[in-house]
């Protein structure tokens, strides 16, 4: 009976989970149907755009993960310490609401915010010496810009999750800390943060996996800035260019496969070692 109920989902899992992966593997190791070993990978690695793309994504990830961890934990602790229930709920909701603008819309909004001529925070941009849109999106600023955009859309969700985890810490433990004379900072450092560790690593791993996939932000910014942001900034953009500009599906599959291996590896690591998800 279990098979009947799960058959529809099973088919989709095969069609859009397993098969594309197998097909990407097939394409990555062949050319015109003939097995070519690692030729496609060698070609991709030697492409002059590959290494810069890896660097771009790596720098972005470092900036993003550090900011995300730091501020999400800090804000969750602060919001959790707010006495009034009403205030705490509203603040969490305000933090969360940008999540509704995921995807192209959030980048679109940030185009305005990053353009000193229309931005409501133009004074901030000007204070940093940024007078025009092209200057703002110059390549050195991009890791920070993508961090701000990703943080703006995604951090609220994580803050809500961390808040939930903080609520799960037993009252007895908190009470004991208070009786021992621990202030808010000590309690946070010695009790709350260690107890959040699983969730923090979950957030880190998921954001790392998602961050390697960077696509829509550089893609839209590249379109908007007419190439000041290069069209091959991230790895996924490069894979896209291989498939759509060069018609090289094998090369594209090779890059996708590298990214997929990273994502599956991180996910599998977490499922088997993280202990956050129930597996019976």
């Amino acid at each position, binding site marked *: 009976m*279990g*098979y009947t109920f799960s058959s*529809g989902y099973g088919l989709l899992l095969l069609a859009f989970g397993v098969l594309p992966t197998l*097909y990407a593997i097939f394409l990555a190791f062949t050319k015109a149907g003939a097995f070519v070993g690692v030729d496609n990978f060698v070609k991709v690695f030697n492409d002059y755009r590959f290494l810069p793309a890896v660097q771009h994504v790596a720098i972005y990830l470092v900036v993003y993960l550090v900011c995300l961890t730091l501020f999400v934990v800090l804000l969750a602790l602060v919001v959790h*310490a*707010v006495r009034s229930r009403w205030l705490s709920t509203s603040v969490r909701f305000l933090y969360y609401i940008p999540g509704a*603008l995921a995807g192209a*819309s959030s980048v679109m909004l940030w185009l305005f915010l990053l353009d000193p001529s229309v931005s409501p925070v133009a004074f901030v941009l000007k204070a940093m010496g940024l007078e025009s849109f092209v200057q703002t999106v110059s390549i050195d600023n991009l890791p920070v810009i993508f961090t701000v955009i990703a943080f703006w859309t995604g951090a609220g969700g994580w803050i809500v999750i961390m808040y939930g985890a903080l609520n799960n810490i037993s009252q007895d433990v908190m009470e004991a800390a208070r009786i021992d004379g621990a202030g808010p900072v000590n309690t946070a450092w010695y009790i709350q943060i260690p107890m959040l560790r699983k969730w923090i690593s979950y957030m880190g791993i998921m954001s790392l996996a998602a961050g390697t996939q960077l696509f829509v932000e550089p893609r839209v910014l590249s379109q*908007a800035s007419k190439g000041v942001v290069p069209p091959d900034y991230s790895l996924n953009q490069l894979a896209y260019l291989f498939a759509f500009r060069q018609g090289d599906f094998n090369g594209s599959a090779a890059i996708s496969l590298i990214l997929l291996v990273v994502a599956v590896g991180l996910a599998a690591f977490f499922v088997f070692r993280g202990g956050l998800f129930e597996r019976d």
Partner: protein
Amino acid sequence: MSATDLTAVSDKTGFAPGRWLGRALAFVVAGFFVIFFALPIVWLLLAPTKTARELLLNNPFSFGSFDTLASNFQQLTQFQNGIIWVWLGNSALYTGCALVLALLVTIPAGYALAMTDFKLRRPLLITTLIVMLIPNTALVLPVFLELSAVKLIGSPLAVILPFSFFPFGVYLTYIYFTTSVSKDLLNAARIDGAGELRVFWTIAMPLATPVIALVGFFNLVGNWNNYFLPFVTEPGRKSPVQVGLAELLSNVPLFNPTSAGSVTIDLPVLALATVVSVAPVLIIFLFSQRFLVTGMTAGGTKE
């Protein structure tokens, strides 16, 4: 540490300037981030009420006029003979069909994983967990390559089918059934002579209403905002609104000087298009705050 504890401690120690400083600092941090998260949205909602000139010169948080809003709206709907409606229609079609299909396959699958026993159950569960944790962009190009091999690119199915594959929903349903519906209840119905389908339909389904709503919500919101997959599989007039929005951008002279001369889009119109493109999701968000919290923390029920 809650604020009540704070006051209790400082009452004992008398005046505690350090504590008050800490509290003030916490308020400043929380307040700064409220501004950071909320202000852009306020600005975005106000921008379409202004003309391009007013947008540049007036106070960024001033309200223009309803007349300007109407004329901006007209400009948006006239762009390429109302292509915005085509895009919105596509989005509605894709996400709507995907929603129905996703619920039809996801809920029974989660039920099967939780309430029945079969040989492939464990492998299916573990695969689901792993695929659920893979960012959905990771499979976009492989899916594209696969779909182009079977010549489905440009067909509505090229987004509807991948959109209805929703492992996170299966996981949510699975968790829901294992934690809140007892097997005994289902067995009692079986003893009374109900067949498996009947047990599922008349007993399990009514109990599962909350999780059905939750799965539907996450599926709809995620798919509406999805950019990468439809961007590669639904070119041109087949695009949903998120992809169309980026297309509009090419016609804004400020961001794209070479487009000057052709039909151009003013900045407030682009802002309006952004608002229109997220309006359905924004509205759903406003009314389902409680959902979100339960859904997102569902991962750690066994902590």
